[in-house]
């Protein structure tokens, strides 16, 4: 829990940001409600409770995926990790692509080897003003605090322990290298993930819900998208935890209705209701195998 104060500060930073930076999509989720009463200790705690899963509770393991494992997946990674959800993140592109001085000169890096820090330093050296202005340095600064380097989804070996990632945010719970939910940020990535899982052959025999949340690739949308993903993840986790509890020694007989049906079959429902809350981010879903 040593990370707590930092996280709280982080959330305070984040909360007002979207209101200022993104005029078109109103941030609708209930998550936002206590933002004004942040000053009071009690309120802050309540806020933290809502958005954070206590460590003694059941937790789904999440994986966020975008094209370059830089903006959208990392924003979501941060938000999920801040909620104490086990999270890993990937990109599905062939290379890490970041905007360069012109459209035709992107900055291109290799996955799995180039660290966020080295990218940050290189870009800062190249043109500090430009990359500060377009938010890249800020983004990279955030990323290097989350994990070491961008990872490629296709190179991920499910089930391979991730002990060497112990410094990453959201590592707790992902040590076995398995996930329950993959959240992609673009249909292209969704397709790439499904395809790659076919290629991987589902060797773990472990079901994984792949969910796409369409997010435009810019900082503002990533921030809003990150909140949407957090909203979705918390709901999913809530339902999964309910299943665990309902089916405990006493729960099975007493539970009824929705609680009676399990987590997996409720996922489409959850996505559908979530979609009504976030209509600007069209969702897709598939049960795949890792």
């Amino acid at each position, binding site marked *: 829990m040593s990370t707590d104060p930092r996280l709280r500060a982080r959330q305070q930073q984040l909360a007002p940001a979207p209101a200022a930076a993104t005029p078109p999509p109103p941030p609708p989720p209930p998550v936002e409600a206590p933002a004004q009463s942040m000053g009071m200790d009690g309120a802050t705690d309540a806020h933290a409770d809502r958005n954070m899963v206590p460590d003694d509770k059941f937790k789904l393991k999440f994986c966020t995926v975008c094209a370059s494992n830089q903006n959208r997946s990392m924003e979501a990674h941060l938000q999920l990790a801040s909620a104490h959800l086990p999270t890993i993140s990937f990109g599905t592109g062939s290379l890490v692509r970041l905007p360069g001085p012109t459209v035709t000169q992107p900055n291109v890096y290799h996955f799995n080897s180039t660290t966020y820090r080295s990218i940050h330093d290189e870009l800062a050296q190249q043109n500090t003003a430009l990359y500060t202005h377009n938010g890249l340095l800020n983004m990279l600064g955030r990323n290097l605090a989350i994990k070491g380097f961008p990872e490629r989804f296709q190179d991920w070996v499910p089930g*391979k322990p991730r002990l060497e990632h112990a410094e990453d945010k959201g590592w707790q719970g992902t040590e076995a290298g398995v996930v329950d939910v993959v959240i992609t940020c673009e249909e292209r990535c969704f397709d790439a993930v499904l395809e790659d899982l*076919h290629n991987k052959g589902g060797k773990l025999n472990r079901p994984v819900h792949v969910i796409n949340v369409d997010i435009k690739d810019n900082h503002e949308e990533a921030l809003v998208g990150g909140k949407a993903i957090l909203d979705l993840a918390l709901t999913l986790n809530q339902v999964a935890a309910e299943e665990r509890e309902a089916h405990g020694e006493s729960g099975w007989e007493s539970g009824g209705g929705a609680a009676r049906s399990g987590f997996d079959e409720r996922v489409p429902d959850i996505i559908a209701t979530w979609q009504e809350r976030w209509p600007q981010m069209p969702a897709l879903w598939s049960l795949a195998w890792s």
Partner: protein
Amino acid sequence: MSAQTIQQLESARSLALGDGRYYPTIIPGVLPIIGYSADQTIEIQRWGADFLAEAFASPTWPPEAKENSASSVLATLKAYLENVPDKSVIKSAVQAAASVYPLVYRHIVSDPSDAQHWQLMSAIKSNILRRMDTATPGVRICCIKFLQQVVLVQTPGVLDPRRPDHNDISLALVSRDHPLIPYASLEAEGHGLLDRLLDIIHGDHSDGLLVTGTLNSLGMLIHRRPVAANKILNSVLNFNPLKLANSPMSPKNKVIMKSIERTTRALLMNIMKRNPENPVNGRIQQFLERMHRMRIDVFDESNRKRPAPSEPIDGLDPAKRQRLGAEAPSRTPPVAAPPLPPGPVSWRQLYTLNPEGSTVNFDVQAFKDPEQLLRILVPVLQSVDGTKLDQAISIVRSRYATFMHSGPRTTAAQHAAVPVAEDEEEYEPDFEPEDAEQLINKLDGLPPTDFPAQTAPTTALAPYKLPEAPQLSEQEAQKYGDMTIHRAFGMLSSVEESHKSKVTKGGFNRLAATDYSRDAWVTILSRLATRASAGLDDPEQGVKDEYAVKSAKGSLKISDAVRDGLYQYIMYDWKKRIDVAISWLNEEWYNDIILAQSAKDSTKNGAANGHTSSTPGEPKGNYHRCALRLMDGILPYVEHTDKILLRLLSEVPALDHEILIRLKKMAEDPERIDLACSALQYLYMFRPPLRTIVVDVLAEMWKENDRAKQSARKLLVRWRPEVLGEETSSTPTMKTEEGQPAKESANGALEVKAVS
């Protein structure tokens, strides 16, 4: 107590996570704790099932090692499956069983005596298969994956049984006479289970979970079991991913439908990418396209329509009652239309279905601006109700049919008599359907341009025939013919650039006009000009060939049009097209000769007719005329450096005084004197028959053109010195008249004197 135990277990697990090689030692240590007992806490059972699933799925230790440990956990798994009601325990146990099954299977393959473990495995298998249809979906998906593993190992993997791949656990590893696992029954079971798997995607789609889970498990089977690939693919291609389109479009169904569609697409794309040469890819592509269109249909429609109410309808609120399908067709009230009044009926009456309506008085002519009319008309047409329109059309059609039936003749006659109705004034078609006879009669009786005022159209319409086009007048026919020729030459110019360079002359071996090259077309066109009408004239007319141009007989005109085309074509770029000129003139000459010969023959034969007035000895047909025209056309453009003129003069088939005298004219330009002289010199040297003419021309030039005297004299000195001699006496008078050139001629005279 349990928390403490879990902590111990966790530390054992992290050891194994740190290095997979510890699993074989950790599993036996953990098993006594996690092994099922009735008084166990659920946490330990969950941990145990999760751990087993994780351990046997882990890529960090080799399958051989796993195989050795696999048998030891079967009892625990079986006990979990049979005794624990908790769903997450079951799920993990089934996952673990899916990982363990191939391992135990291979163990049994290599150790046929181990009946005990196979029995345990079989018990687990049948337990799981029993759950397949009854368990909650969360468990069933895990069963699906187990099924996939069973199908995988119970289907032959490699097609060549002599070279089994030992890393691929498949039916190919099983010997035919295995005592525990008979090949045939395994194979049959594999088939049966695959069918069961495939049945899922054709079954209920309402939760999407099983369908997408199954689809996502098929990719690997197709890839690794080519034997089964076709069966699976056929099943997938016959599958309707948008099955839910017929059920209410709730948000959940929308998500499920989109998801199933997308999952199917990902699967098929993966199959195509893995094997781009697969012959079935075409079918897959078709399926994907069809699916895409269906998806657009389904979702576009759902976007346009208000979604059906998803809450249960109690029937109390009529506003909320769902409309029944049977009611739908009669929704639009039938269009009522009064019957037509008896007697003659105007078009307007025929089409007016609602005589009381306000639109009856709508006069289109009020709109002077067609744009304005368009702006109104297009939205109106778009808003027309299809069914209403159909009804209206059928009413008009039936009206028309009955009307036709009730004596079309009389109405037609009456109609003609009736003064033209107000809105029929505009109805004045250009061509009335008439039968050919009528048309001919009319054409006979009337000048072709003067169409009679058409009577108002009768309602007795015959099946519509396109009216015969009016006959072309002579001028029109000629105009169109000219256009055709013009186009031919246009084509020629475009062909030129691409073909000219490649041509290799075949000499006498070539056949004229065998390809589409420029030369071929030139040949065709020049022969068309020269021969097409040749010999068609009477011999007597042939006599008049000389004057044919002027008399402009119709049959000859086309030749002349082509000639004109050729002339224009050559003149457009005469230096480059001099070869065209030459071949054309050759054709002309040849034709003239042939004609002249046949004329000679006919005059010989037909002398009795008394038509002896022809002048066959003088073949001044088209050739002469054309050559002169061409020379006259070209010469103004000839520059003093244009040696190509020599080529023209040397290659045209016949030259006479009249043609060559043009050179004298050319020589009046002092710049071109030398060219003229060298042309004449060339002709003198290489066309001996022309020598007299050449020298005559030269002499004339010498006489008449003072500036050319010097050049001409050089040649005349050699060829006809006597001219110079003659002139010495006469020239002085001229010299004295003109002054400036006098010196020259005086010198010349002196020279000549010296020579003579």
